[in-house]
């Protein structure tokens, strides 16, 4: 005998997911599951295609973070050509990824999570959306829009609106940055930094108010995986991978993406279409790890950017050397926005950016390659195998939400356990579960390679398997 709760749909995330909560005899939480119910065999669709087309094809998997797929795919393509791409192309790709991180994090923080954070989890659901936020705090809402627009502008200055799906290509990029584009970015950076620093100030003021959420949203030991650059600096493109444990001990360092299979295993569960990656050394499911903003600020030694480092130090003093709760994903996003803006400040002065040498030309020189980029949501792997002519024979994609899958499950369980007692619960709990999931900014349409709307529902079942309640919006 037991009860079961299912949340459906979690609004404001994309894709389709379902959460079920099973209660035991006493009405306490026995088990929770975060299911993803849509699937399209995307990998299969790529078999037989020339690998040069892969950036364009994979950028279409997801309308939310096409840039991340584009970059991971182009990088895998570089590997198949076995070329070192021109320095300008490498830097321009980096610039675009910074733009992508900024725009995606701005959307997640200001528009998707902002209403919960600023208006409160127990506020009127009819108001707890971006319009409610605009009414309550027009300045913050406007800043969020400006920041997001800036990130998008950087992407557009490089990729253009139309050709965007295939700007980065195996061997380099298709277009450079114009002098005027560079001036445009440079001119806006100071204002954007002010906005980001202001936002993190606002978030820090809220810590007091959300003590309970901070203590219950995904606070459990796990491993963290992310990319770092030389000296352990925060890195989002072109670095090596690092895995740390919950004490901050570095378990794996300097991992070349091509060797990811030595380190990462992928388990399959019958109740979810997402794969469940885990760190092999610790087995399944003990090798659960998290990726994304929180993981990246945990694995890096420094942010490699002054103001971001100040914020990171402060957060580490407050939350410990390894920041554990998924509530801190919000802090991590803002720190990353600041770091991205600072990195952009440095990068934008580099004259290589204006070069016309953008693309290395070569044939198939390797039959297998892995491209990795840090997507806003976490480390993204594209692994391709090709025949001697360059036709794809095998594809494996590991996306952020898949890697966070185990942790999202754990988080849901933890929030449910903390807020449901003796079968008693109210709407606010379901909002928190939803928010706990949203802290990871899951992009389910991409993780299941499905196109369309994400819907999520939470269902609560009793010990007999009878549906007690269901929330779906």
């Amino acid at each position, binding site marked *: 005998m037991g009860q079961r709760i299912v949340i459906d749909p979690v609004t404001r995330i994309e894709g389709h997911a379902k959460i079920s909560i099973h209660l035991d005899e006493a009405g306490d939480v026995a088990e929770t599951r975060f299911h993803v119910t849509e699937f399209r065999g995307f990998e299969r669709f790529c078999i037989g295609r020339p690998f040069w*087309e892969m950036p364009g094809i994979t950028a*279409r998997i997801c309308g939310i973070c096409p840039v991340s797929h584009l970059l991971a795919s182009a990088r895998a393509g570089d590997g198949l050509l076995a070329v070192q791409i021109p320095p300008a192309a490498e830097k321009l790709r980096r610039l675009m990824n910074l733009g992508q991180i900024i725009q995606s994090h701005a959307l997640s923080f200001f528009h998707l999570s902002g209403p919960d954070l600023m208006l409160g989890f127990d506020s009127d659901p009819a108001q707890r959306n971006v319009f409610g936020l605009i009414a309550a705090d027009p300045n913050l809402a406007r800043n969020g829009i400006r920041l997001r627009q800036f990130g998008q502008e950087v992407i557009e200055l490089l990729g253009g609106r139309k050709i965007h799906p295939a700007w980065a290509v195996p061997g380099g990029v298709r277009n450079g940055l114009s002098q005027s584009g560079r001036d445009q970015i440079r001119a806006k950076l100071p204002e954007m930094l002010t906005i980001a620093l202001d936002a993190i100030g606002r978030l820090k003021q809220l810590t007091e108010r959300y003590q309970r959420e901070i203590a219950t949203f995904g606070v459990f030991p796990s491993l963290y995986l992310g990319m770092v650059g030389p000296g352990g600096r925060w890195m989002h493109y072109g670095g090596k991978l690092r895995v740390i444990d919950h004490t901050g001990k570095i378990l794996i360092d300097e991992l070349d993406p091509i060797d990811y299979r030595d380190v990462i295993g992928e388990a399959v569960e019958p109740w979810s279409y997402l794969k469940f990656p885990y760190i092999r050394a610790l087995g399944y499911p003990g090798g659960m790890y998290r990726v994304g903003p929180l993981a990246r600020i945990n694995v890096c030694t420094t942010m490699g950017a002054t103001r971001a480092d100040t914020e990171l130090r402060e957060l580490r003093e407050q939350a410990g050397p390894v920041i554990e709760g998924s509530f801190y994903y919000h802090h991590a996003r803002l720190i990353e926005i600041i770091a991205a803006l600072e990195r952009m400040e440095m990068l934008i002065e580099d004259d290589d950016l204006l070069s016309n040498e953008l693309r290395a030309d070569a044939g198939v020189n390797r039959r297998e390659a892995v491209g990795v980029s840090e997507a806003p949501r976490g480390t993204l792997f594209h692994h391709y195998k090709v025949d001697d002519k360059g036709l794809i024979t095998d594809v494996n994609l590991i996306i952020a939400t898949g890697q966070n899958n185990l942790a999202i499950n754990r988080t849901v369980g933890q929030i449910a356990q903390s807020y449901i007692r003796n079968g008693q619960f109210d709407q606010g709990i379901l909002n928190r579960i939803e928010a706990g999931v949203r802290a990871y900014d899951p992009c389910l349409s991409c993780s299941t390679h499905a196109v369309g709307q994400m819907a999520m529902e939470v269902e609560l079942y009793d010990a007999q398997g009878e549906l007690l309640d269901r929330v779906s919006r």
Partner: protein
Amino acid sequence: MAAKTLTIDGHLVSARPGETLLAAIREAGITVPTLCHLDGLSDVGACRLCLVEIEGQRRLQPACMTMVSEGMVVHTNTPRLQSYRRQIIELLFAERNHVCAVCVASGHCELQRLAGMVGMDHVRYEYLSPNCPVDISHPRFGIDHNRCVLCTRCVRACDEIEGVHTWDVAGRGVNAHVITDLNQPWGASTTCTSCGKCQLACPTGAIFPRGVTVGERPHASERIALIVEARKQRW
């Protein structure tokens, strides 16, 4: 020989004897959709997009294959023709796998342009979704049969202009497909001179330069006519 006078869409037009109706229509400044026709190559009347109504004839005639004659009264854009043209384009899309969003020719493709021209907003036929191969064994070019519309422009360009006849058509009906030499991989062809005229002639993204990415294949079919003209004039 005296010029022929005919009426096209209500306008009196004079044409040279031996000229095709398509040429006369174009000289009159009227646009008729075409696909298998390419200036500089012989005509085969395969795609049927240029069908027109000729008064006194029960059957529709392909303008590219019909010679002008004295007193002809021609209609190029009747509702019936519009409807047929749209059906033809829809059938072409339904027959193979055209995913424009990720196609190398997107934005520079005749089929795509024609779809816009005939007002195709969706396809009413069931997609056949065949499993077509991609051959990129040639060092410079590739052919993706998913995007081939069987216009045979490549076959004619290779035969009539380059003169080596590497390309041909094999199979019938829905199984028809273009082949190189005796159905060998293109890269193994002993006749292909790698001149690239087939690629120039191809209206879609079916033949493409190796290594191009989405929307990157230029459309340059008009260069076929240029080559023909240059040869004739010994430029």
